[in-house]
């Protein structure tokens, strides 16, 4: 188990503060936040690439706060893969083991083993520039996993791949994690990717952790406006408009039923998205989104009646 306690890191005009964060073993944990939120800094603090100004990082009961990177039992996969261009795939993967002074036959055995797991066993003699982007990433993952780390850190692992490959690698990563029962910490700014992959989500904003929990919990019961708006599509209207008193009320497009109800809005725009349609409406001067079946036939300019599922509405 990885625990961060009272960790503080200050850069020019930016502070990351983590009062308490627990990463349980064997889970796929995704750290999600917009750019500049401090999510990469969090990963680098765990990796040991940055030292915190205060607080401690504890891995399986061992305080690793001031240990060098290579003594921490963490594997890191860099966004750009960061393979050694002058070494073969085999030597790239073998590098961490060589520096642990393991005997040669054991190095060979472990490299070949992990290469099979990552499906690159036939690439071991090649150089990184001879591989495709996806293969390079597998080499980077193999290099991180070969030392059997307690935590695998993935820094935006899907951002360098094209859209089609991204879905494929997404599935591969999750299956790999399940197969090895590894503890994975995956950093991303893509909320869809985060919800698809994470057993546990850590949403971070402005250097503070907003909420930690399983994706469905964060989606249905966000503790803050930020989490509500960052995960999925959202509507936010003054509570008075829907007769719920003071303040603001938030609800998801799928909680809006078009066709009948107490409220009226004008259709501004229709988006056909295959399995469903998304409507943009003018509701007393506030723009809201509503989801409807693909067969819905409202026209731009129509005034439609609608209702909101009040049980699922959130107050802010």
């Amino acid at each position, binding site marked *: 188990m990885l625990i961060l306690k009272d960790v503080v890191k200050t850069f020019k005009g930016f502070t990351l503060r983590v009062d308490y964060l627990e990463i349980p073993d064997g889970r796929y944990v995704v750290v999600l936040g917009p750019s500049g939120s401090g999510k990469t800094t969090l990963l680098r603090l765990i*990796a*040991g*690439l940055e030292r915190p100004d205060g607080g401690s990082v504890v891995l399986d009961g061992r305080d690793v706060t001031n240990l*060098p*990177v*290579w003594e921490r039992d*963490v*594997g*890191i996969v*860099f*966004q*750009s*893969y*960061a*393979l*050694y*261009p*002058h*070494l073969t795939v085999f030597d790239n993967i073998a*590098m*961490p083991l*060589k*520096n*642990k*002074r393991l005997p040669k036959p054991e190095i060979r055995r472990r490299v070949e083993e992990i290469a099979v797991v990552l499906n690159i066993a036939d690439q071991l003699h090649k150089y990184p520039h001879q591989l495709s982007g996806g293969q390079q990433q597998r080499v980077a993952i193999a*290099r*991180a996993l070969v030392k059997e780390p307690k935590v695998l850190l993935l820094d935006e692992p899907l951002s360098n791949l094209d859209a089609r490959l991204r879905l494929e690698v997404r599935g591969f990563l999750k299956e790999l994690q399940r197969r090895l029962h590894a503890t994975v910490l995956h950093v991303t700014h893509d909320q869809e990717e985060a919800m698809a992959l994470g057993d546990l989500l850590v949403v971070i904003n402005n250097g503070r952790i907003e909420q930690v929990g399983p994706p469905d919990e964060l989606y249905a019961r966000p503790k803050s406006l930020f989490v509500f708006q960052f995960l999925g599509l959202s509507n936010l209207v003054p509570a008075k408009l829907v007769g719920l008193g003071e303040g603001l009320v938030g609800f998801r497009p799928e909680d809006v039923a078009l066709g009948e109800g107490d409220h009226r809005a004008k259709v501004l725009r229709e988006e056909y998205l295959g399995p469903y349609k998304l409507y943009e409406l003018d509701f007393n001067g506030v723009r809201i989104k509503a989801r409807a079946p693909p067969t819905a036939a409202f026209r731009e300019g129509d005034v439609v009646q609608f209702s909101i599922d009040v049980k699922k509405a959130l107050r802010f």
Partner: protein
Amino acid sequence: MRDKQILFLALPALIYLFALTVYPIADNALLSLYERTYEGAFKWVGLGNYLWLFQKDPYGPLIIGNTILYSVATPAISVALAVPIALALRRLGGRWLLPLMVPAFIPPVTAAMAWYLMLNPLYGLGYYLMKAGLMGTNPISSVWTVVLVDVWRSLPTAVLVIYSGLRAIPKAVEEAALADGLAGPRKFIAVDLPLASPQILTAFILTALTGFFTFDPIYIGTAQVGPRILDNLAYYSYEAFSAGEFGYSAALIVVMTAIGTGLSLAYMKAFSARSFVKLPAPVWMPRREAPKALHYAVLALDLAFVFLPLGWLLLMSLKPPGEIIQIPPSVLPSRLDLTNYVQALGGGLPYFLMSIYISAINSAVTILLAAMAAYQMRVHGLGGGKLVAYILYLMSTPTLVYIVPLYLVVRGLNILNTLWALVLTYPIMTLPYGIWILYNYYSSFDRRTEEAALADGMSRLKAFAKVVIPLSRSGMGVAGLYAFLFSWGALIFPLAFTYTPYNLADPLRFSGAQTFSIYIGELMSPVAMSYGGVAATGILSAIPPLIYLTAVRRNLEKIWGAG
């Protein structure tokens, strides 16, 4: 070519380069098969000149031995010193690069002269070195002094190239190395050195070229100790040329060109190659980072190496004439005395004027022609890779190659010993370099700017003049710096094409065209014995390039990647 105007813009530079390089290189090869008789006629001797060099010339072994020493020792020492300096720069920040680069901006004659004055065992620091037993032989007559001056001159280039190689290592790879247990010296061997190996090889070849073609330190040294002690192929071929033995000189130059071409090809290969040397990750090496103090010490030593001869030169130039030669030599002047400067400016005025004229004219010509050609080469792909390769080749060939055929041309045009001889020949030194700098500069130039100008109804010529040129100022500033530097410090062309100082009695004829680099050589001879004057001349000669350097510092740092 879709557009004639593209070719038209590049044409002046290309016609000039082909006419003044291809013809002399070919003619030189032809001349090497002839011998000039006492009557001045050329007699066919076949390979006689070559056989003479390798079999009969009593100086042959000495010349060849010295040449090999200069071209092996210079790069070996420069690169060995440059690696720790580049590491210190990476750790402590690129702002230290500018002072370390100073030797590359001092005229080569001045650099050589400063070292010879300082090491002199009679009136220089050499006296104390000899007395303390740190130096066994007289440094003035030692070939190692030539190597020392070459290392001083070429070290900045080696540092710059290797430093840029170290900086090009991605940050993520360095961090991945940390994760894999590589740090400190162990990481240096396993990651830094292999990944910077193409740049280290490039630095080796560039400094080897400096050592192979070295001329100025031998010119200055020979003025002090006499001929046939320090000579290499380059200097010896110049001596043969000035003795009128054009055929033999041409043969020596052909030998040099052949070796130089080999080095240039190796340079081009190293420049474009992306293959790395592989080194084992030595697990016994320590992982502790070298302490910062060590890096500071390396930097301090290099700064001392850079500024010691210049400091000595400055002190010497300010001494009253009576204190220049005394035993033991004084280090500090008893009072600041400007007599040396009065003497330097008095006797040196015609030389300085001529150097200023030719440097100004040639810099302007080079910048303009180079920009016109480089833009079309880069943006419109004019000439393709072959033309770029030829430009690179010219950059790494010595100007010596051209002197014999061009001497005959200049004499035929009746402009020998005039400013016009220099104006005609100087761009050979500076144009390839200018084109290369601007060619790289234009790689990041947005060609749509020109296309927008064309869409607005301008012709290509007008678009170039009104849009491209104004946007090229920083690149042209740097190209101009190097053009000025080469023109200002030139020695071989003025030695070959001039023989009297600028005639101030009839200034508008611009005849008599010796430059200050020749003046320094004349003052260095033991006959002139004017060491205070020469020191002052040296200081004066270093000022214009250093002013120019400070002026375009920002743009240079952009190109160096230091800022």
